[in-house]
């Protein structure tokens, strides 16, 4: 009976909104939500949550379909979006490789500042994780000691050369004065799994990728790379508190291809702003340690991307492009 009721009400609602909807632009076919990372990672979880919320709350006349294009540290997704110039039915769920991949791979000839700025959904954080079985490692000092003791065979898992976690790994190598082996995996979920299975020694995963393993007692965080401690990890010190000068965030934003119609851009901006302000999204941010207090879109987002691009050029210069691409 309940189903019947929901069905009739939703049909009634549809009938009521239909005439108004004709007035403005809206999707005419399924919208591709391109994820520039593999399944199970932070970006993937976010894209799938957003897709579900859009459909659950009936926010779009056409479904959103998440598609993973993890190849070449996001190069596959970026060149796909580049090739979709002027398309109104493709969006990109971006992370920091949005900046780093075009810097490192100049031959791709991708300028992300031409992409349509839809909105920034969150700032995500990074933590340093090890397997809980490593009882000898309890804090950053014992971690550094263990890395040095391994004599250059310490394996760090990440999501790809030139990806944000490889930059963070290189920053740590520089600040803490050690060397590790960096092994790329397709997606943060696979990285987390390999840490639990002891195939690698440590990772710098985002909270959402390690949350369930942490709750189950399989892995433990040692340091967080925020400015201040984030809510789910009150007991974990920040790098700055420990005197290590690293502060690094992951942006989670949505972009469209260059040349998207302004009406379409406006429609998507409204859609994602509504999602950003929804209870479900804010709850997710809280439980997974994301910072979601400020909605940025349009010109403000373009300015943010510009600043981040400059910062990443500096970061990559500082650690050296060679240290983050595979030798």
């Amino acid at each position, binding site marked *: 009976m309940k189903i019947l009721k929901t069905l009739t009400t939703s049909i009634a609602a549809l009938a009521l909104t239909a005439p108004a909807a004709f007035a403005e632009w809206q999707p005419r076919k*399924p919208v591709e939500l391109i994820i520039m990372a593999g399944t199970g990672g932070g970006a993937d979880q976010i894209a799938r949550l957003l897709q579900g919320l859009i459909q659950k709350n009936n926010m779009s006349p056409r479904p959103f*379909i998440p598609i993973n294009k993890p190849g*070449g540290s996001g*190069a*596959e997704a970026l060149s796909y979006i580049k090739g979709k110039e002027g398309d109104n039915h493709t969006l990109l769920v971006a992370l920091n490789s949005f900046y780093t991949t075009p810097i490192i*791979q100049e031959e791709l000839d991708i300028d992300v500042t031409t992409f349509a700025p839809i909105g920034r959904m969150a700032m995500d954080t990074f933590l340093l994780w090890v397997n809980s079985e490593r009882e000898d490692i309890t804090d950053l000092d014992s971690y550094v000691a263990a890395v040095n003791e391994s004599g250059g065979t310490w394996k760090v898992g990440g999501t790809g050369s030139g990806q944000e976690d490889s930059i963070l790994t290189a920053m740590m190598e520089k600040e803490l004065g050690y060397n590790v082996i960096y092994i790329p995996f397709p*997606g943060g979920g696979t990285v987390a799994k390999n840490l639990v299975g002891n195939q690698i020694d440590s990772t710098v995963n985002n909270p959402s990728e390690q949350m369930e393993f942490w709750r189950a007692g399989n892995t433990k965080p040692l340091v967080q790379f925020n400015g201040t401690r984030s809510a789910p990890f009150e007991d974990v010190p920040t790098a700055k508190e420990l005197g290590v000068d690293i502060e690094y965030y992951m942006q989670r934003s949505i972009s469209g291809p260059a040349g998207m119609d302004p009406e379409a851009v406006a429609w998507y901006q409204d859609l994602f702003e509504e999602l950003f302000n929804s209870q479900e999204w804010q709850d997710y941010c809280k439980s997974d340690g994301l910072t979601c207090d400020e909605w940025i879109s349009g010109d403000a987002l373009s300015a943010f991307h510009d600043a981040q691009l400059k910062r990443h050029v500096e970061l990559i210069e500082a650690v050296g492009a060679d240290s983050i691409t595979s030798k």
Partner: protein
Amino acid sequence: MDSILSLLAAGLLQSFEPLNLAMIFLGCFAGLFIGAMPGLGSVNGVAILLPVTFLVPPTAAIIFLAALYYGAMYGGAVSSITLGIPGASTAVATVFDGRPMAQSGRADQALMAAAIASFIGGTISVILFTGFAPPLAAFALKFGPQEEFALMLLAFATFIGLGGDDIPKTIFSILIGLVMAAVGFDIISGQPRLIFFDMVEFQRGIPFLVLAIGIYGIGEMIWTLEHTKGAIQMHKVDFGWKKIKENLGRIKSYLPVSVMGSMLGFFVGTLPAAGATPASLMSYGLAKSFSKDGDSFGKGNVAGVAAPEAANNAASTGSMLPMLTLGIPGSPTTAILLGGMIIWGLRPGPLLFAESPDFVWGLIGSMYVANFVTVLLNIALIPVFIRVLAMPFSILAPIIFILCVVGVFATTDRMFDTWLMLLLGCIGYLMRKLNYPVAPAVLAIVLGPLTERAMRQSLIGSQGDPMTFLERPISLTCILIAVALVSYPLVSNMMRKRKAASA
């Protein structure tokens, strides 16, 4: 064990609730058709039907999606057999023997075998899932890059025997597939490579379905047209109780390979990296290697339909395991299931079994029921499916052509891929004429990227030392079996020649 049985009983009861049962029926039915439509594929199908699930409670919703996924696995075989177009990547191996069977007027047998083998695969795997989920999840964690590489090597080894006695031609075909798999971005460094003629379209790589639909859909169509001049009608429509009974009597001939395929498929499915496509290809290879009349594979051996079908269904159950316990979906379709779970506030991970037993066991219970429902639906629909083949081939061929073009365009949304598919279809036809086996090329393009990634990850980790593959017990075992499999046909060939010479 007691607790598992009582949990399972509760789960089964739950799936018999009217709403859940209705969801199972609806899901299986829709899935069957989605799977059977080339190009629609279960990914789009599941994504488009996702809104249905918001009208019902979470458990009913995930049961619906799982039933849909299940039905699509069965359905994939239908277009593989009747049209020769793999409806989904998981059904490619079903074409190898299913198509020749249909062409010789045995489509009903092939469809029946596919249905029964899928049922066996689904049932065995769900029993394994019920009994051994936690230890298997722990075992899957032991699989690092080295083990994955060794397993892939094993898969290639089973296929060396696939090309009949002509091993050089098989290896050539594998190499062609590997080259095509390498096109696009380097998976480790992210640099573009093998961009033919500097065409940017190649940066995205050659999608596997483009190759599979080209070679099997177009290539086979041309070949059949050339040989029959379009003047054949492949099948007469008579499928009643008598036929069903007759077909049930044939189960014995493919029961062993189905059981083997189920075990293998389930196991491969539980590994996060692999999934149902490699599982079905490996199962086919193994069935052929161990068959007494391996030469008849690829020419319409019913075991060649049963083995991959059992494996892909078993693997689809198996891939639920890494999804539920590790949050890593084994296939794009399970990824959408995962998305559904996140929205309902169910977080996949090691604690899911303990924290949401109602959900997990309701899902497992529904798999048992969905299996029965799909096999019954499938057998009931066989007369409908073979009606397609009652058309003269001169009418069927243009339909196949259109479905191939639409199927490729719908999945990749690029005309470039559609042209590429047609080109590969012509190449497939030529290979067929020159007696090159095409199945190994298909295998190579699926497994190539997985193998390359695993190998390079292992070697980065060991700082270039190849001994890393032999130092780990699971990896060493797989490699030894692979070596034995490759040398077996060589040795038996030599023995045969020696015997012939001495006689």
